[in-house]
């Protein structure tokens, strides 16, 4: 660390910050890109198909269909960039960015490995160091902002299907945010703080998923609603409202909207891992080596990304009234009950 920083003529803190920015930016983005491949191949395998395997790298290597990613990217760049005539041009161009940027920002507080000390300095493996005062509130807030991208996209398209998708997305986001927040508050309570590093450290003995099993179920379900993934992808119900909020989008703008969905998924998986599955903790190992802790985090993280895909191809889409019923009448009381029960136990024994 010191050596590398000296070569680049910057202080170790700056060097580490730059390195972390690159990791935090490139990591989720790469995983999101790979997830599009996993989604297609995995869904194919689940449905007894084969999936895309025809794209060749340099016309020679098939690589299990991975070159499809490059082919899609090139295709999106080459396509004609159409904007609907009646659309609001400025917002139409801005909306994919408004969806994409918050999706990328959410990952900043997630600790993806154990802190390590080198030459008297402690380096923490999350973009924002512990004790920044925002803690877990930050990804929650950013996650709530993400709906504006979808809403802007839908409204600026000036299309009935789009606006329906946007309305659904916003209604869904509002109703599920409450249940989700209450589930997370129970964790803040038992942890005694809302910093992700604290939350991860508090899970050294038992992962939060065991005492907070109902909270986990609520949070997990709400994450599907937050990321607009099936079974809650009402914002883009293909069979109902064409393609929902991105009906009018094409080429790279569509790709950005689509990618932001995957980045959301990646961030949601990281949040689930941090809050409920002990982050980088390895069961039975009090102080794992740094690389091993990163490995543990990545394994859990990728697994939950896969669970998102797995569930998508298992459960059909809900009806919208069922979604609202589930959000207000099941998830909210459940997470509230979870909160109260934990509060009672803490009051009694804690």
């Amino acid at each position: 660390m010191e050596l590398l920083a000296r070569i680049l003529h910057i202080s170790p803190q700056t060097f580490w910050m730059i390195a972390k920015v690159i990791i935090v930016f490139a990591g989720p983005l790469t995983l999101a890109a790979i997830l599009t491949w996993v989604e297609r191949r995995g869904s194919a395998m689940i449905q007894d198909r084969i999936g895309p395997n025809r794209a060749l790298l340099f016309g020679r290597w098939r690589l299990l269909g991975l070159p499809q990613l490059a082919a899609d990217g090139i295709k999106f760049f080459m396509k004609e960039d159409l904007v609907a005539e009646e659309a609001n041009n400025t917002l139409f161009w801005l909306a994919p960015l408004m969806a994409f940027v918050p999706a990328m920002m959410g990952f900043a507080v997630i600790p993806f490995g154990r802190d390590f000390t080198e030459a008297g300095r402690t380096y923490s493996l999350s973009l924002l160091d512990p004790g920044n005062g925002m803690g877990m509130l930050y990804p929650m807030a950013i996650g709530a902002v993400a709906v504006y991208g979808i809403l802007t996209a839908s409204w600026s398209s000036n299309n009935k299907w789009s606006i329906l998708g946007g309305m659904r997305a916003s209604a869904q986001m509002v109703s599920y945010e409450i249940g989700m927040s209450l589930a997370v508050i129970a964790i803040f309570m038992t942890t005694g703080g809302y910093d992700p590093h604290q939350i991860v450290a508090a899970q050294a003995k038992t992962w939060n998923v065991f005492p907070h099993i109902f909270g986990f179920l609520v949070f997990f379900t709400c994450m599907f609603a937050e990321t607009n993934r099936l079974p809650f992808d009402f914002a883009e119900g293909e069979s109902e409202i064409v393609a929902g909020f991105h009906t009018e989008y094409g080429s790279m703008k569509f790709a950005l909207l689509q990618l932001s969905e995957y980045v959301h998924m990646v961030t949601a998986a990281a949040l689930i891992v941090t809050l409920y599955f002990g982050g980088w903790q390895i069961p039975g190992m009090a102080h794992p080596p740094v690389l091993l802790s990163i490995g543990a985090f990545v394994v859990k993280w990728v697994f939950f990304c896969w669970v998102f895909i797995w569930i998508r191809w298992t459960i059909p889409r809900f009806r919208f009234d069922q979604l609202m019923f589930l959000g207000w009448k099941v998830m909210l009381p459940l997470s509230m009950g979870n909160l109260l029960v934990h509060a009672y136990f803490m009051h009694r024994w804690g």
Partner: protein
Amino acid sequence: MAVIVKKVELNWVDRTYVIPVAMGMFITMKHFLKQLFTRSRKRFTVQYPDWKREPAPGYRGLHELKRFEDGAIKCVACFMCAEACPARCITIEADEFGDLNRTQGFQEKRPAVFKIDMLRCIYCGMCEEACPKDAIWLRSDYEQASYDRLSMQFGKWDLMNTYAERDGKARITQDPTPTVPRPPLQS
């Protein structure tokens, strides 16, 4: 008639929704793993341009005009197939053998032109059924496509040679000079 839809009453296990979802996920995972660990040759998908499927024996694919051993066409230009064809894609022009008919016992007619418009053909096999001489067969070739319309107009020689390579027969481009009388006709 009205259909009375009975509302399905779920028991409490199903209403929790968690256990049924877990069961569903188990099923999808089973399919996933099964497909993942099946060799690609054993999967359901036939990866078409690389592997080809052998059609079933009764398959109605590209036509062949059958010929005798010496290469003479079996078709006698009776127009039965053209009549039977629901898509009206067969065009026949009859031709006479002339003197050979009477002196050497050859069939009366043969087609000078036998055209099938493959763009119109619906591969119903009516021509095959109508033919009194078993001269037209619909066989196994299902890959007919081309870049222009003209190459989908199959003439007499195209149709006689469609399966020549596959059957190990010589390609012929003209009616052989008749030397031997035909065997007695059954009809």
